[in-house]
């Protein structure tokens, strides 16, 4: 059962290889970045060991340790989820085909959780040294840290399994990923709600005091570690440990018995309600009512494909949720709300949504549905029609997104005036034409294979592409910037509209010239495009 065991070491080595192979073409870079990361964490641990003994009171040490342990808890539960969704984590269920007992698999799963929380262990070691050196803290205090670490590992094993099963359900997976992405906006929201100038030394402990009195694991561990109390926190933490072990083991066992095929079978389109299916079909067939074939059927296919691709659905939802969340506090935070940014909130969020969806809809419009590209070369259809079809679909989804942003803003309620709605549509439309022009060129010159079913993975954009985007975005925004400048300079809406009209004229010309070049490139680079798109989706693909 213990470590020099062939199976256990094989699994741990494989997990390490899977993580390192993620950057197999640049192994040295992976090692360098990993080394630097752990160096920084070790430096933070040394800092903790040095700072804690200098703290005046046991109460301040307690506050620091409580917050640290809480952050450690969140990190330990969050990182495994991140690894699962990025394809870097071994799925132990796959090992069921090999002669290995399920109990041993659980033991390995818990061991693997050490690898996802090494940073926390290093920081805890630093804190333990600091506590040992503090004259007011007892020597036995830090002995609670291994118990706290064990609780985290056991709980994390259960959380990971629970989330793996939840993430197998399409809608839930997108909601969870959206929630995780939205969490990244949390620091910004906190900073706006509580600006740094309002921070006081006692403020944090005041907030902590407001939390109901309950022996949370981090609170109990901190109390024991600093010697504030011993028996009650120890009993509480033992209780948490037992609960964590029960939760972790039961969830892991359920995960082993769980049959993903059954879940997928229940989500099959045939099992959807006929009314919903009919509504969807009406939506998909809209282009065929308005346009001739082959353009209509191309757009219809694009709409069907995009609305069924998890990755696009997530990006689309992010446009009118995450986009609003991250811009709202910046514009309407304390002391703001009346400036130019607040006045043009709708336009800003719409443009941000265009940037979010840009990679799928414009910059890599061949690579997102890469399997279809061969057909475009085989079927008797002009490549210009294919690109125009993709562009019209992109435009359709983008304008739909602006409509949804407007709807959400008016429901919240945020100030939404008719003229601003019109302006948001106009500006997004102009920006889209430039994005389509540049995107068609990028898609035919730098096609990248993407996995449409993976909700949260790197786009695979090369450094060259990212630099190009960094330059192109400001460039395509110039006409819009000029229109706003004209309105400010002449103080009239007419100037704004005239400059926008000129922008549309230039954009249309640019689009048709770029389309011709893109089609030419698509013809000439046929083999390179097909070869590039036939590669796996980078190294974490699958």
């Amino acid at each position, binding site marked *: 059962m213990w470590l020099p065991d062939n199976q256990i070491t094989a699994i741990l080595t494989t997990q390490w*290889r899977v993580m390192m192979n993620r950057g197999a073409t640049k192994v040295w870079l992976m090692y360098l970045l990993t080394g630097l990361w752990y160096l920084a964490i070790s430096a933070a641990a040394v800092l903790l060991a040095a700072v804690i003994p200098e703290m005046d009171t046991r109460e301040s040490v307690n506050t620091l340790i409580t917050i640290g342990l809480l952050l450690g808890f969140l990190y330990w539960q969050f990182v495994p989820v991140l690894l699962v969704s990025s394809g870097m984590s071994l799925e132990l269920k796959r090992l069921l085909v090999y002669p290995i007992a399920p109990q041993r698999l659980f033991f390995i799963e818990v061991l693997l959780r050490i690898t996802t929380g090494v940073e926390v262990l290093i920081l805890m070691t630093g804190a333990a040294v600091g506590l040992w050196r503090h004259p007011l803290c007892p020597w036995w205090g830090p002995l609670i840290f291994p118990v706290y670490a064990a609780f985290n590992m056991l709980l994390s094993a259960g959380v990971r399994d629970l989330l793996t099963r939840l993430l197998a359900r399409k809608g839930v997976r997108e909601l969870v990923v959206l929630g995780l992405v939205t969490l990244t906006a949390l620091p910004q929201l906190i900073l706006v709600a509580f600006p740094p100038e309002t921070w006081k030394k006692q403020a944090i402990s005041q907030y902590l005091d407001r939390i109901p009195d309950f022996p949370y694991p981090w609170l109990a561990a901190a109390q024991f570690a600093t010697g504030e109390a011993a028996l009650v926190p120890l009993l509480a933490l033992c209780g948490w440990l037992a609960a964590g072990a029960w939760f972790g083991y039961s969830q892991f066992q359920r995960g082993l018995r769980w049959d993903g095929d*059954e879940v997928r*079978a229940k989500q099959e389109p045939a099992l959807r309600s006929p009314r919903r299916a009919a509504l969807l079909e009406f939506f998909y067939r809209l282009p065929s009512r308005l346009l001739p074939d082959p353009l209509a059927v191309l757009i219809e296919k694009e709409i069907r494909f995009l609305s069924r691709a998890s990755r696009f659905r997530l990006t689309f939802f992010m446009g009118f949720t995450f986009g609003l969340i991250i811009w709202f506090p910046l514009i309407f935070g304390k002391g703001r709300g009346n400036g130019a940014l607040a006045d043009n909130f709708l336009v800003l969020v719409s443009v941000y949504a265009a940037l979010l969806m840009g990679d799928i809809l414009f910059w890599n419009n061949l690579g997102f549905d890469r399997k279809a590209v061969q057909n475009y070369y085989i079927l008797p259809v002009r490549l210009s029609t294919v690109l125009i079809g993709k562009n019209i679909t992109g435009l359709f989804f983008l304008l739909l997104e602006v409509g949804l942003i407007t709807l959400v803003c008016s429901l919240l309620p945020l100030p939404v005036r008719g003229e601003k709605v019109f302006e948001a549509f106009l500006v997004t439309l102009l920006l889209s034409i430039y994005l389509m022009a540049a995107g068609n060129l990028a898609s035919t010159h730098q096609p990248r294979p993407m996995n449409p079913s993976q909700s949260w993975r790197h786009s695979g954009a090369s450094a060259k592409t990212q630099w190009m985007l960094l330059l192109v975005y400001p460039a395509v925004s110039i006409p819009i910037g000029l229109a706003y400048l004209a309105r400010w300079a002449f103080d009239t809406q007419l100037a704004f509209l005239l400059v926008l009209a000129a922008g549309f004229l230039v954009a249309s010309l640019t689009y048709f010239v770029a389309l011709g070049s893109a089609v030419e490139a698509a013809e000439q680079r046929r083999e390179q495009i097909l070869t590039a798109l036939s590669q796996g989706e980078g190294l974490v693909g699958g």
Partner: protein
Amino acid sequence: MTPELTPAIEVEDLRKVYGDKAAVDGLTLKVERGSFFGFLGPNGAGKTTTIRMLMGLAPPTSGSIRMLGRAVPGEALDIKRRVGLVPDDTLLFDQLTGAEFIEFVGRMYGLPRDDTRSRAAELLQLFELDTAGRKLIGDYSKGMRKRVAMAAALIHRPELFLLDEPFEGVDAMGARLMKDILLEQVRRGATIFLTSHVLEVVERLCDRVAIIHQGRLVVDGPMHELRTGSETLEDIFIRVVGSGERPANALDWL
């Protein structure tokens, strides 16, 4: 009956239900030791579900499974030690190289590290995967993926092979190599349970065949008994799972 005399696989009234659909519906099957058993069926008939249940990846809704004289799941560990597997695509680790994967599988079967390394190197060479170098399985072609899975299945010299579409996407040279190796394994006494859509291959290799249709067993018998007169396996297959003839007026425009 001593374990050596029991059938390699014994399945009794096996059922697997997904939602309100039975993927496998009352399957009863016996595969004798040392036989080359072909398990056939049209798409969605329940072949892969059956293999997944045999491998312990999908728990049956009801019914019993015995393999190599031992009960599943009660004695699953002992069974797994003696079974080699070419699974469907999903059980490979895309982020490992071929060599890393075969080595991993060898160590999971408890082989000493040195043996694992030397056997992995030999298998890679035999299946012409040694040239793939640092290439990850995720970047392999379908044929290469099947070859690496077959190489991994052989590493611990199993008594029973469960092979799910092992020839899918494999080129003629690779398929010939795999067939020769499998026949060699049967000659040394191993049992092979094979699913395949390539009926000519099954006809040439297998000594016994079962056909499953809509989750139910519709044919089970020795190959020489099933093929009467000039009837080929394809004729039998089409006769039992559907006519394969289109309605009189269909595709008139073609």
